[in-house]
């Protein structure tokens, strides 16, 4: 039995890992170390209820204070892990070395930025509470326009929330349709229309050449030559895993902390959440999943893995799933679709913006995407988990309607 577990990253995956250890009866020391000063909070509302002003920061807590106290943690907030050596089982926190028995890495990811914009005021990314506060303040300050760079899920949510403030929005997307790489062009164009109908000036198939301004942002120059004047820019072009502190640690770092099928990265070291990359046996490929539910599940899995022998260890083989709220629509995707997968509408209609579509490839069901169709998405998610064939999925759809 282990005497202690050290968890680095005090957010969703890290906290859920700690909760799992206690629920499973572990009574040793759990150190939870995070570089943010705040008690662990939830990120999805940052682009939704918090950004719109419906919620204040006190509603973001991931667990109520009494539940965190009940976990009896050695909770160290505002402390950054600065190094790791897996051979000597030591971690460095704020420059001071300490030993560990079991280590769980959950340092998540941060936003990718556009080079050369660091010194320009009014250009933001959205990952943490401070970003959320800053963007919210900027939106309340009646900007003449907000330019959202990237029509991925976070960009789309920021655009939707800005529309709610009555601020004119231009959203710039390099792909021909929002989320085209995940959903294909047909479904991508339904998502595009959702934005356009809410008044968003959506520019697809163009990139950002330059963000112009001396002290604060004045305009954005696009690859098609257009210049959009603005005093607020939110960049949502993806994230990069927080692995810099792990250089020279002895771990393999390759677009995340590389783990085995069971989330083990080295003896006595596991990883979970946005920072972890592992071969998901269900897909036979390496993945790094940046979704809320994955952080919860993998946090629990990686925590248990630390308590298991290699004989007891089980592979981590989820079907990825996430949701996103845009305007009054809830979109959900489960599975892994490719743009050239076969697509079939199985419920509702594109016109109503209430529908479920399934994706298939090579005779297998690969994914389900729904707009305001949570029941159907979950039913097909069940089929995905059982490895259903395309025909089974079509039969199921027929019985349902």
């Amino acid at each position, binding site marked *: 039995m282990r005497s202690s577990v050290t968890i680095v990253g005090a957010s969703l995956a890290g906290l859920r890992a700690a909760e799992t250890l206690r629920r499973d009866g572990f009574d040793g020391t759990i150190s939870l170390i995070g570089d943010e000063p705040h008690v662990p909070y939830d990120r*999805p509302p940052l682009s939704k209820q918090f950004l719109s002003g419906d919620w204040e920061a006190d509603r973001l807590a991931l667990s109520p204070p009494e539940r965190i106290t009940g976990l009896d943690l050695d909770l160290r907030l505002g402390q950054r892990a600065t190094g790791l050596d897996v051979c000597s089982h030591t971690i460095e926190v704020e420059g001071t070395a300490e030993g560990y028995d079991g280590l769980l890495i959950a340092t998540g990811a941060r936003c990718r930025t556009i080079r050369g914009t660091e010194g320009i005021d009014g250009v933001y990314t959205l990952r943490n509470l401070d970003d959320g506060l800053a963007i919210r303040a900027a939106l309340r300050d009646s900007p003449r326009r907000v330019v959202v760079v990237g029509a991925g899920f976070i960009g789309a949510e920021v655009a939707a929330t800005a529309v709610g403030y009555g601020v004119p929005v231009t959203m710039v997307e390099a792909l021909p349709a929002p989320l085209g790489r995940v959903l294909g062009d047909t479904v991508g164009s339904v998502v595009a229309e959702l934005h356009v109908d809410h008044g968003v000036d959506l520019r697809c198939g163009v990139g950002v050449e330059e963000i112009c301004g001396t002290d604060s942002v004045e305009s954005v120059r696009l690859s098609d030559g257009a210049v959009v004047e603005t005093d607020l820019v939110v960049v949502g072009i993806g994230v990069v895993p927080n692995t810099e502190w792990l250089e020279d640690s002895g771990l393999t770092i390759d677009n995340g902390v590389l783990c085995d099928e069971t989330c083990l990265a080295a003896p006595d070291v596991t990883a979970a959440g946005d920072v972890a990359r592992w071969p998901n046996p269900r897909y036979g490929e390496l993945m790094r999943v940046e979704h809320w539910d994955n952080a919860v599940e993998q946090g629990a899995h990686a925590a248990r893995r630390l308590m298991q022998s290699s004989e007891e260890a089980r592979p981590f083989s989820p079907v990825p799933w996430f949701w996103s709220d845009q305007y009054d629509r*809830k979109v959900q995707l489960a599975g892994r679709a490719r743009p050239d997968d076969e697509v079939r509408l199985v419920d509702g209609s594109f016109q109503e913006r209430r529908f479920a579509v399934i994706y298939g490839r090579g005779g297998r069901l690969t994914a389900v995407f729904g707009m305001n169709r949570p029941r159907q998405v979950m039913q097909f998610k069940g089929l995905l988990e059982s490895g259903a064939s395309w025909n089974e999925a079509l039969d199921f759809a027929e019985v349902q309607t």
Partner: protein
Amino acid sequence: MRIVVDYDLCESNAICMQIAPDVFEVRDDDFLYVLNDAPDEDRRAAMDEAAQRCPKQAIKVED
């Protein structure tokens, strides 16, 4: 054991339905219905999992 859902928080994500369809059902009207608010003790692990994986923390498992 009693299951209490805060419907002001619930956003009908239906992940709970996938974990425990005998207890949670999101119907075609997109609302969540609790089919059994006092499940048997042997369903506790599933109830805990549903509470933990509800993105809105809308589910409480009371003793």
